[in-house]
């Protein structure tokens, strides 16, 4: 059965989606166990694949038994095995952590919710594992469509925000498809490996240049690179917490992975970074994305929206790291895909718990929360430290690689932008710690009398944590941030270094 793992990792959640739909009409209680079992199988497969491709092996699986380029093939190599594990584990942990939330938010539609949930995971896993440029588009459609639906449920403004996302997401997907169409016209092939063999001979063609640019533009829209980020903050803010904490850690990261695949694997790095000469401008776009994302995060008064803008800045990190075009930068970029997925999951799960208890995520209502929900807030702060980049959390290590990449490339503006964004993140998270811990004392100014009552109230705050089922997964994720940080050396030497094409120094 082992040689079938690449098929099983995708088809088990796919098949489970149909069973969940049926279960939703027969017995709602069955939906959750089926979903969790299917995602568990995926997670198991992804870890086995990770182990078998470590040290540079490549697994190719021909679907339908047709050899590429005639059929569709799956490729598991060092570039995508880590992202596979990240996607599968985020989907798996999030479904456990948000069980209670889902039951309350979608009492009549649990079946539909979990169906879309596993389909979304299927779509993303498929995007990551596929070795076929058109198959990637089809799975992009599945992930996007289910994502729109999941984000469309939530507060009153969620449907409109999701509609915005549909428009921009569809434009992005169309651009990608158009690019694949151009590639097919010029080469007659859709298989990525085959494409990379045919393309170098016709790099001079304008069709290829346009195919590359159109594909990238589509992916930039999909990954919300500034200034194409407009759909992201509202869509993530107004959606319900279980959907946000699934989609926010994964969508942008998987799109960054798709960009890596196109620039490094389908096209050669020499072409992407050298021949067409756009890498410098894209690093500058990334710099602007980092600065603008951080500044806009600073202007927010709600946790979810602040985190959404932090994601916009983080996308800038990864795009910039890749387009620096050197080994350290690309290592940082790949490492940051995994680390950012873990950090974002941690932060959004914590916010989900806060909203579950307090029904709001605005800064004004965080007062005294550090005493009321110590574990949740502790995990939130740990996630914040990781976003800032404090060792030994994982955020430090990917930022370290990105900065050394920037220095090696002589791109000091990128380094400065990274440091600036870290400083802004310090302000962002310490402001929250201040509100959550010290706020009652700050009322001194407004009047002596009030402060005493506040202080008494502050002391009386009882611990009111979210249910254990929500807190334990969150604490595990928070612990994982440190674990990932400590494992950085192993991850880089045994996996990521094989993922970077040999020509890059």
């Amino acid at each position, binding site marked *: 059965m082992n040689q*079938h793992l690449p098929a099983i990792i995708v088809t088990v959640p796919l098949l489970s989606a149909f069973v969940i739909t049926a279960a939703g009409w027969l017995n709602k209680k069955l939906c959750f166990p089926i979903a969790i079992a299917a995602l568990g199988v995926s997670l198991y497969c992804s870890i086995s694949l990770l182990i078998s491709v470590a040290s540079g092996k490549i697994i190719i699986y021909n679907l339908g038994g*047709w050899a590429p380029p*005639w059929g569709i093939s799956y490729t598991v190599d060092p570039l995508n095995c880590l992202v596979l594990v990240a996607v599968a584990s985020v989907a798996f942990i999030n479904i456990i952590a948000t069980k209670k939330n889902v039951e309350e938010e979608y009492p009549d539609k649990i079946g539909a919710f979990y169906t879309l949930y596993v389909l979304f995971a299927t779509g993303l896993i498929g995007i990551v594992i596929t070795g076929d440029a058109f198959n990637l588009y089809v799975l992009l459609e599945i992930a996007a469509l289910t994502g729109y639906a999941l984000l469309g449920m939530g507060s009153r403004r969620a449907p409109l925000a999701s509609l915005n996302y549909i428009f921009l997401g569809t434009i992005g997907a169309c651009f990608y498809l158009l690019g694949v169409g151009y590639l097919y016209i010029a080469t*007659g092939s859709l298989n990525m490996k085959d494409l990379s063999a045919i393309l170098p001979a016709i790099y001079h063609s304008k069709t290829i240049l346009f195919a590359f640019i159109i594909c990238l533009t589509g992916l930039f829209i999909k990954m919300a690179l500034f200034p194409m980020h407009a759909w992201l903050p509202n869509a993530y803010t107004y959606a319900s917490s279980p959907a946000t904490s699934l989609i926010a850690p994964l969508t942008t990261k998987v799109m960054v992975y798709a960009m890596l695949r196109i620039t490094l694997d389908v096209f050669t790095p020499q072409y992407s970074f050298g021949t067409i000469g756009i890498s410098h401008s894209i690093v500058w776009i990334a710099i602007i994305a980092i600065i603008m994302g951080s500044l806009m995060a600073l202007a927010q008064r709600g946790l979810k929206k602040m985190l959404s803008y932090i994601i916009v800045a983080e996308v800038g990190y990864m795009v910039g790291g890749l387009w620096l075009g050197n080994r350290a930068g690309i290592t940082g970029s790949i490492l940051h895909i995994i680390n950012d997925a873990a950090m974002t999951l941690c932060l959004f799960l914590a916010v989900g718990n806060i909203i579950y208890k307090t029904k709001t995520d605005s800064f004004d209502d965080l007062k005294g929360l550090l005493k009321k929900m110590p574990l949740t807030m502790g995990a939130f702060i740990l996630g914040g430290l990781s976003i800032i980049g404090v060792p030994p959390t994982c955020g430090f290590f990917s930022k370290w690689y990105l900065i050394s990449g920037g220095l090696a490339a002589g791109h000091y503006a990128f380094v400065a932008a990274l440091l600036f964004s870290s400083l802004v993140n310090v302000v962002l998270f310490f402001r929250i710690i201040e509100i959550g811990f010290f706020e009652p004392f700050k009322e001194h100014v407004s009047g002596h009398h009030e402060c005493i009552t506040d202080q008494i109230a502050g002391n009386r705050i009882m611990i009111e944590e979210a249910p254990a089922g929500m807190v334990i997964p969150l604490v595990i994720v928070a612990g994982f941030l440190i674990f990932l940080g400590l494992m950085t050396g192993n991850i880089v030497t045994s996996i990521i270094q094989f993922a970077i094409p040999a020509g890059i120094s």
Partner: protein
Amino acid sequence: MKIIGLIAVFLCGCLLVYGASDFPGWGDPSSPASTHVSPYYIETTMEFTHVPNIVTSVLADYRGYDTMYETTVIFGAGIACFLLLRVVKKKDPVSRLYRHKATGITLRIKKGGKIPDKSNAFERIDSEWVPYDLIIQISCRLLVPLIQIFALYVIAHGHYSPGGGFQGGVILAASIILIAISYDLRSALKIMSERASAFLSAIGVFIYAGTGALCLLLGANFLDYAALDSLLGSGMVMARSHGILIVEIGVGIAVMAVMICLYYNLSSEGKQDEGL
């Protein structure tokens, strides 16, 4: 702002046309698209799959994996529509209309009132569109079986002529939707309930993906229909042909059910009570 947008679109269009200047000639038999992978499909389709319609063999076998996900996209659209639109808790309308079948007299029952009696003498009608038109109803009903037979023909003949699961499924759904339009939504729901359409949409795609998984269990790669030979006993080539037919049937069922489900939810704003 509009003008800036127009200029941007115009410039993008010009760029795309410029980028297309390196395209191979229209219908050029020596273009990469017609020389790289296509010849293999054209030359081997009869030998490997026994399906003369190359479009079908590429769609459902050589690249059948893509098609499975295209069907899943349709399934996902149905579920998404259900999740976003369906209103499960029914709000009683202010008043309901009933027609006495024998005389055609319409009764308005105000809120809190009861239906005249449980006999079959009355039928509920929509509050907005009420004219009772025997000619339309009967002629549409006469059309339904013809439409359905044609749909089955389209599904079954995908091997030999244009057609297949997607087209046939849509035509099948059209027959039910025609009932919903010519009678009303409730009559259509009596023929195919919401529950049935949800089950069928899941079953349809399950047939497709399940066939793939069955091949995997039989020891071949996912969706390698040749493995079905050990069950069907018809030889590898015919097993592929039959495999294609099985998944086309699955696609037909799924597409039909999802189209109907979409119509139910969209036409009644998710209430599945009255609509169009």
